[in-house]
């Protein structure tokens, strides 16, 4: 049930840990991530045109609301069980509330491998879930800064540079490319998509393989940083995705999703961001130590989802969703 594509990640990790001279230039990393975001957006946009928008609107509200539960669960757990400071707890919670484009793509590949269908519009949820958790993370961090009492809290929130934050989050390249691709795909439709499909559809999985190789190299470079962060974070980075996936399955069931869609929603909830979240949190909550949040999301949760999580979420969907 494991797609062989995940082996590229392992190869990257091996190269990184063994200090091989294999290096993927930063310009290529940028190009690959731009491609993946655009390609996913485009595909979602093309499929959107065939979908009843009213139904989507209704589901979206639910998916968003349930999605925000994840950072709201993660924050107190990290703060009180994990004894992290409020900055770190908020930043990590934001990473886990947001989503991972690559994890989603590997799950789509795994569905294909297993012969299970899904709706392309699931990408909408990917776009929707990317950013609210980041805003919530900033709110949690600022509330933690505030002196006790409602007045102090309100003032703390007022001190956030909301404009700059919104800019950072909504005009970050992730949202811009995903949403931009969505709109272009919607406008282009099947006919307009066809001539660019050799690049944006047929090449997708091969490029994803190259990106996973690079992710492995990056994750390996994070191994050291993680070692310092202790056993609690390791456990959190494995248990949190499972809890989030369960929330995803419950939400999917509630909304009458198909097995494939349910598995993808579970995967989205379970995935942690490492493109949009790290950059946004570094600017908005600079007091948080990025080694912790990136170490957990990229160093543990990402490979866990790739190798163990996705098969579990697929099993969960098959078991708890009526075919």
């Amino acid at each position, binding site marked *: 049930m494991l797609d062989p594509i995940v082996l590229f990640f392992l190869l990257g990790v091996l190269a990184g840990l063994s200090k091989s001279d294999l*290096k*993927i230039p*930063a310009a290529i*990393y*940028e190009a690959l991530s731009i491609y993946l975001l655009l390609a996913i957006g485009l595909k979602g946009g093309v499929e959107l045109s065939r979908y009843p928008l009213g139904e989507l609107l209704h589901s979206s509200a639910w998916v968003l609301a349930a999605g925000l539960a994840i950072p709201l669960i993660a924050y107190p757990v990290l703060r009180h069980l994990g004894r992290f400071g409020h900055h770190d707890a908020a930043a990590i919670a934001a990473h886990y509330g947001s989503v991972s484009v690559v994890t989603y793509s590997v799950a789509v590949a795994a569905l294909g491998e297993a012969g299970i269908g899904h709706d392309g519009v699931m990408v909408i949820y990917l776009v929707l879930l990317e950013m609210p958790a980041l805003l919530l993370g900033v709110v949690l961090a600022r509330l933690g800064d505030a002196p006790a009492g409602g007045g102090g809290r309100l003032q703390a929130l007022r001190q956030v540079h909301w404009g700059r934050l919104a800019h950072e989050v909504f005009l970050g390249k992730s949202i811009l490319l995903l949403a931009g691709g969505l709109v272009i795909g919607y406008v282009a439709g099947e006919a307009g998509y066809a001539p660019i499909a050799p690049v944006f559809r047929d090449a997708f999985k091969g490029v994803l393989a190259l990106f996973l190789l*690079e992710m492995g*190299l*990056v994750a390996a*470079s994070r191994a*050291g*940083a993680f070692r310092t962060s202790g056993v609690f974070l390791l456990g959190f980075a494995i248990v949190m995705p499972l809890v989030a996936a369960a929330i995803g399955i419950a939400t999917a069931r509630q909304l009458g999703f198909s097995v494939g869609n349910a598995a993808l929603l579970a995967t989205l909830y379970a995935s942690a961001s490492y493109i949009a979240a*790290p*950059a946004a949190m*570094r*600017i908005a909550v*600079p*007091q948080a130590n*990025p*080694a912790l949040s*990136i170490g957990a999301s990229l160093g543990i949760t990402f490979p866990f989802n790739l190798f163990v999580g996705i098969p579990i979420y697929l099993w969960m969907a098959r078991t708890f969703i009526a075919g």
Partner: protein
Amino acid sequence: MARPAKLVTVYCEAVLEPLVIRELDRLGVVGYTVSDCRGRGQRGERGGQWRMSANVRIEVVCDPVTSERIAAALRPYEPDYGLLVVRGDVEVLN
């Protein structure tokens, strides 16, 4: 012909670049040069594989007073970000 000046070099995380430029704007500094780099410091290795581990070098040729102001303006970023600011003497030849 040769005019003495200061060369301020800021080594910092790539994500900090726009914030440093904003400080330069506030101080009315027009000229600067940025280049991409990688490195290691108190906060560990930053290998430049992706944006989160990339560094930049920002160079500003300016007068001594401005160089002090730049250093002062960047001080608040120091506790939270990887940052090194050095200053040397140069002559501007044109």
